[in-house]
C-alpha cells in the first residue's frame, strides 16, 4: 500500500462541530421574515377523474394567503428520465392515494391544515390496478391510457401497463440450457421499502426582488431539482437558485424534484417566502418508496458446478409514474459470476400506487437477494459447499463483465477469503443456529463531476464542488485535496455551495461521490499544484521538475530549505503573469471499476415462533484505498444495517384493493434500532482501482445488498427451510417450518406471455 499523509487516517469529519452541537442548518431550520407554511392535500382515491375542486372555503379562512391546484401549474408533464408521464400536481386525474391535488400557504401550519379540510374535491372513481402482475395482463385497467402520446415514450412492446423494458443478452441461452447437466428455476420476491431517512422532505422557496426564485432544499441533487423545477414551472433554469442544505439522509429518495414546486408557486403567488415540511405519513405516502419486486431466475449448471447460462426476468412495479431507476437491478442478474450465456429482462408496470423512487442501488439489492439465494440453493442441490460453488464461478480479472467491459484487477477473492477466515468456514453450529454467505457486486459510480480549488494567501485552499455532502463525502473530498497538495486536512476549506456558485455536477448518489467527484478533486488539486510548481520554478529559478510540493510548501528536492510556502506563492500569484492560482477539473465518466463485497450472517431460529435472531454479521469489501477508514467502516455498517432491516423487518405494505400504504409510520414500519443489533464486524480489502482517486473504489451501495440473502441462507443452514420472500419474518419461517407453504407466486404464465410478446420461442 502506498504511504499517505492524509488518506488512510481516521481524520475527524469537517462538519463534526456543526453536527454534534446541533448547529448544522437543515432546510427546516431556514426561517425568513413573513414566511408562510405550506401543506398539501392528498388524494383520497386510488384512481379517479377529478370532477371539480372547490377551494373557495379554504381561501376564505383567515390566515390563508393562497391555495393552488394542478391547473395553476403550466400544463407540462415531466419525468425522472426521458418519459414524461407526470404532472407535478394532479390536473384531471389522480393516480394514487396521497397524490397531491391542492396546496395551501397560510400564516401558520395549523391554519394551513385547517384549510385543507375545507377543500372540496369531487371525484369520479375509475377502476384501479394495484398488483403489477395483474397490470401486465391483457385486459387490465390502464393506468395511463394515453401513454403512447406522452413525450419520451419509446417502448416497443405493446401491452397492458408496461412502461419500460431493459434487456441484455449474450450467447445462445436456449442451447446452453439444453446442453447443461442441470437447470434450476426459482422465483423470489422482495418487499416494498421506505428509504427511512430521518429528515423528512423539506424546503423553503422565496421569490427574490429581482424575480429570481431561491429554493433551500433537502436534496442530493441540486442541479436536478433546478432543472425539473424550471421544467414544471416553465421558467428559465437560470432564474432558479437551489441551495442544498445539510442533508438528514436521502438514500436515493432525494435525488430529484420532490415537493419544491408547491412552495415555489405559492411564493410566486403571494410574494412571501413559503416553507414546506413533510410529516412522516406524507413521506411514506407521497414520496417515492421502493415497490415489491419479483425476480425469476433460471440457471444452467454442469455436473462440475460450472454455470453455463442464466435467464433472469424482473417484474417491477413503478406505481403511478416511472420514477427513478426502477429496474437497473436486471443488469446485475449474473451476480458476481462469469456466465457465458445470458438473457436478462426487466419489465416495469404501472399500478395505482405511489410512484417509485430510488433506494441505495435501485433494484440491485432485490436482485442480489434472488441471485445469492438461488446460488445457495443450487450449491446445496449439487452437494457442493456454497462458498466453493461461488469461488468456482466468481468473475475474475480479464473476464468480460455483463456490460461488455473487461474486468480489471479487483479484490473479490480476497473478500471471500477474509470472511471465510473470520468465521472459520465451513463451520458446524448448534441445532437451530446457522450461517449463510452472500457475495455482492456493484460498480463505482461515474457521471459528470467538477471541482475547483483556489489557493489562499495564508496557505489554505478553498474547495468548491457542486456535490451535496452525504455520509461524510465533504470530508473525503477535503482529504483528497489535502493529500494531493501536501497540506493538512484543516488547511482545506470546503465551501458552501449552491447552483449559482458551483459548477454543475451530478447528484450525490449511486456510489459516485468519492470515486468520480473525488477524481475531479484530485485532478483539480493536480492542476493547482502544477500552477504552484510553475510559479515556484519561476521565482526560485529552478526547473519545475526539481521541485516537490509537501507540508504546505514547494521546495527544491535537492535543497529543501530553498522553498516557498503555499501562502507566499498564493500572494505572489495575485500579481503574477498567470494570475491567482485556481485548479479546475471537469470529467464525465470513468472506466468500469467493479466493487465486491462478501458478507456472512449467523442466526438463531426459534422453531416455535419462527422468529429469526441475527447473532453475528461479518462483511468484507474491497474499497481500493480507504480514504478515511473510520468513515468507510461507518458507511459499510450503516449499509449493512439497512440491509438487515430489509432482510428481517422492514415491509412497506400496500392495501391490495386500493394501493394505499397500510403502515405509513416508523411505529409500524420497523427499522432496526442500534441497541437491537449484534456487533457488526467489518473488514476491508484494499486492491486499488485503476482510475479512482488514489486507487479508491466506491463504498456506499454494496453493504446493503448482502443481508437478505446471507440471512436467508443462514436460516436454511439452521433449520432447513428456504424463504424466497422478504422480509424473513417469523410468520414466514414458521409457515415454512410447518410445511404450510411459503412459496412465492409462480410467474411462469406471465413470463410466457411476455416472451411471446418479445417474439421468443416459448
Amino acid at each position, binding site marked *: 500500500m502506498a504511504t499517505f499523509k492524509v488518506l488512510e487516517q481516521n481524520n475527524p469529519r469537517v462538519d463534526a462541530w456543526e453536527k454534534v452541537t446541533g448547529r448544522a442548518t437543515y432546510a427546516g431550520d431556514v426561517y425568513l421574515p413573513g414566511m408562510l407554511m405550506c401543506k398539501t392535500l392528498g388524494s383520497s382515491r386510488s384512481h379517479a377523474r377529478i370532477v371539480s375542486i372547490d377551494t373557495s372555503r379554504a381561501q376564505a379562512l383567515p390566515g390563508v394567503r393562497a391555495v393552488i391546484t394542478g391547473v395553476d401549474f403550466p400544463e407540462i408533464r415531466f419525468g425522472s428520465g426521458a418519459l414524461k408521464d407526470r404532472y407535478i400536481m394532479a390536473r384531471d386525474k389522480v393516480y394514487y392515494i396521497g397524490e397531491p391535488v391542492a396546496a395551501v400557504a397560510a400564516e401558520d401550519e395549523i391554519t394551513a391544515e385547517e384549510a385543507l379540510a375545507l377543500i372540496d374535491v369531487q371525484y369520479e372513481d375509475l377502476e384501479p390496478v394495484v398488483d403489477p402482475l395483474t397490470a401486465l395482463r391483457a385486459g387490465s385497467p390502464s393506468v395511463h391510457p394515453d401513454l403512447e402520446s406522452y413525450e419520451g415514450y419509446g417502448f416497443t412492446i405493446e401491452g397492458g401497463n408496461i412502461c419500460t423494458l431493459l434487456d441484455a443478452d449474450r450467447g445462445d441461452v436456449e442451447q446452453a440450457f439444453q446442453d447443461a447437466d442441470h437447470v434450476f428455476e426459482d422465483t423470489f420476491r422482495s418487499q416494498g421499502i421506505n428509504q427511512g431517512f430521518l429528515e423528512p422532505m423539506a424546503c423553503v422557496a422565496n421569490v427574490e426582488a429581482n424575480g429570481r426564485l431561491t429554493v433551500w432544499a433537502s436534496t442530493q441533487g441540486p442541479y436536478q431539482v433546478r432543472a425539473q423545477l424550471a421544467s414544471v414551472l416553465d421558467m428559465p433554469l437560470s432564474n432558479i437558485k437551489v441551495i442544498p442544505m445539510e442533508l438528514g439522509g436521502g438514500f436515493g429518495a432525494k435525488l430529484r424534484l420532490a415537493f419544491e414546486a408547491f412552495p415555489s408557486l405559492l411564493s410566486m403567488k403571494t410574494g412571501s417566502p413559503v416553507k414546506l415540511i413533510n410529516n412522516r405519513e406524507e413521506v411514506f405516502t407521497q414520496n417515492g418508496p421502493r415497490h415489491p419486486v419479483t425476480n425469476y431466475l433460471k440457471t444452467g449448471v454442469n455436473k462440475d458446478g460450472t454455470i453455463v447460462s442464466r435467464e433472469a426476468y424482473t417484474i417491477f412495479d413503478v406505481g403511478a409514474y416511472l420514477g427513478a431507476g426502477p429496474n437497473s437491478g436486471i443488469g446485475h442478474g449474473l451476480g458476481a459470476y462469469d456466465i457465458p450465456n445470458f438473457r436478462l429482462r426487466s419489465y416495469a408496470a404501472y399500478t395505482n400506487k405511489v410512484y417509485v423512487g430510488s433506494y441505495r442501488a435501485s433494484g440491485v439489492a432485490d436482485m442480489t437477494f434472488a441471485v445469492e439465494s438461488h446460488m445457495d440453493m443450487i450449491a446445496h442441490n449439487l452437494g457442493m459447499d456454497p462458498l466453493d460453488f461461488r469461488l468456482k464461478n466468481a468473475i475474475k480479472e480479464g473476464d468480460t463483465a455483463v456490460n461488455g467491459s473487461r474486468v480489471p484487477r479487483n479484490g473479490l477473492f480476497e473478500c471471500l477469503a477474509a470472511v471465510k477466515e473470520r468465521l472459520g468456514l465451513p463451520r458446524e453450529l448448534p441445532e437451530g443456529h446457522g450461517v449463510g454467505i452472500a457475495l455482492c457486486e456493484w460498480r463505482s459510480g461515474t457521471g459528470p463531476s467538477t471541482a475547483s480549488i483556489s489557493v489562499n494567501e495564508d496557505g489554505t485552499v478553498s474547495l468548491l464542488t457542486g456535490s451535496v455532502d452525504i455520509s461524510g463525502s465533504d470530508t473525503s473530498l477535503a482529504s483528497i485535496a489535502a493529500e494531493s497538495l501536501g497540506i493538512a486536512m484543516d488547511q482545506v476549506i470546503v465551501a458552501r455551495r449552491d447552483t449559482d456558485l458551483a459548477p454543475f455536477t451530478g447528484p450525490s448518489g449511486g456510489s459516485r461521490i468519492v470515486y468520480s467527484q473525488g477524481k475531479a478533486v484530485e485532478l483539480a488539486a493536480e492542476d493547482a499544484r502544477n500552477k504552484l510548481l510553475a510559479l515556484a520554478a519561476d521565482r526560485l529559478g529552478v526547473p519545475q521538475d526539481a521541485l516537490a510540493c509537501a507540508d504546505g510548501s514547494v521546495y527544491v528536492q535537492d535543497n529543501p530549505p530553498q522553498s516557498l510556502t503555499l501562502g507566499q506563492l498564493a500572494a505572489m500569484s495575485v500579481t503574477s503573469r498567470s494570475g491567482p492560482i485556481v485548479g479546475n477539473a471537469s470529467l464525465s465518466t470513468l472506466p468500469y471499476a467493479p466493487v465486491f463485497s462478501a458478507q456472512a450472517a449467523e442466526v438463531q431460529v426459534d422453531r416455535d*415462533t419462527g422468529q429469526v435472531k*441475527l447473532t453475528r454479521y461479518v462483511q468484507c469489501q474491497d474499497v481500493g484505498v480507504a480514504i478515511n477508514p473510520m468513515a468507510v467502516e461507518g458507511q459499510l455498517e450503516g449499509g449493512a444495517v439497512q440491509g438487515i432491516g430489509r432482510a*428481517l*423487518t422492514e415491509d412497506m405494505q400496500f392495501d391490495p384493493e386500493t394501493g394505499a400504504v397500510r403502515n405509513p409510520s416508523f411505529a409500524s414500519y*420497523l427499522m432496526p*434500532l442500534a441497541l437491537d443489533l449484534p456487533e457488526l464486524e467489518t473488514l476491508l480489502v484494499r486492491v486499488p482501482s485503476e482510475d479512482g482517486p488514489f486507487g479508491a473504489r466506491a463504498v456506499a451501495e454494496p453493504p446493503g445488498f448482502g443481508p437478505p440473502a446471507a440471512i436467508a441462507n443462514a436460516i436454511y443452514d439452521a433449520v432447513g427451510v428456504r424463504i424466497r420472500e422478504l422480509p424473513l419474518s*417469523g*410468520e414466514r419461517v414458521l409457515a415454512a417450518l410447518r410445511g404450510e407453504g411459503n412459496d412465492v407466486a409462480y410467474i411462469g404464465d406471465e413470463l410466457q406471455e411476455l416472451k411471446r410478446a418479445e417474439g421468443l420461442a416459448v
Partner: protein
Amino acid sequence: MLRFDFLEARNLRHAIALLQRHGNDSRVVAGSTDFLVRWRQGFWRPAAVVNLKGIASLGRISFSPRNGLRLGALATVQSVESNAHIRRRYQALATGATSFAGVQVRNLATIGGNVCNASPAGDTLPALLAFDAQCTIAGPQGTRTLPLTEFFLGPGRTALEQGEVLTQLTLPAPMPRTGSLYIKHSPRGAMDIATVGVASVVTLEEDGRTCRDARIALGAVGPTPFRATEAENLLRGRTLTPGLLGQAAQAAEAAAKPIDDVRGSAGYRRAMVEALTTRTLQHALQMASGRAVTFEEQRRLAVQTAF
C-alpha cells in the same frame, strides 16, 4: 378543529370538575406519549385536554403483604419496571413494563395511561389482568372499584363514565410459590407494539408439584386483552406436566380471536399464543418452584426480537 385548550388539573377534584365541564369533548393526558401522535393522525381531536400529571399523590407505588400492590395511576412505566417489590413478586408485570416502548417513553408513560388507552396490545395489561388487578375510579359521585377484567370494553373503550378518572390499581399479594412471566412477540426490541403478548402466573401447592392457581392473560389477540380462563381451569389442582401445559396452551389458542393486520396474520397470532403460553407457563412454573431468574434474564425472555 385542530386547536384545543390545555388544562392543568391541580388536584383530583379539579380534574373531575374539568372533565365534567368539558364532557365528551375532552381527553385526559398524563405522560402524553400517545396523545400528540393520535392527535396528529386525527384519531383524537378533543376541544379540551386535561393534564393529570401534576397531581403528585397519584404517582405512588406501595406494597404490603396484607394490601398487596398499590399502583397509583400516574406511576410511570419505568417506576413499575424498576420497583423492587414488583420485580420480586410480580415478575410478569415487571417484564411487561420493561418490554414497553423504549426507555424515553417508559420514563414518561404512566401505568394508568396504558390501562385507560385500552389498547388490545398494551404491554402492562396482560400482567395486570393475570394478577387480578382492581381499579379504583374517582368520579363526581365518589369512588368505586371495578375488576380490571370488567374495565376494558373494546379497543380504546373503557368502563369509565363521564367525569371519572382511574386513580389506582390494586393487585393482591401473590401467594408463596408463585412465579410469572410476560413474553412480548415483536420483531423489534424497542419501540414496537406487541404482535402477541402473553402473561402467565403459576402458584404451586406446598408439595411443589400441584398447581394451586394458574392465570393466563392474552394481549393483541382480541378487541381487549383478556384472561384465558378455560386454559387456566385445565391447570388448577393438577400436576403441571409438559403435556398439560401444552393442552392449556391449545386452550388459550382456542380462546384467541385475533385479526389480520400489518403486524401479522390471525393464523400466525394464534400460533404465537400457543407457543408463548407454553413458554410463559414453563418459566412461571420454574420460578414458582424456586428457580431464581435474574431480571436481565427475564428481560431477555420477555422481548422476542429479530436483531
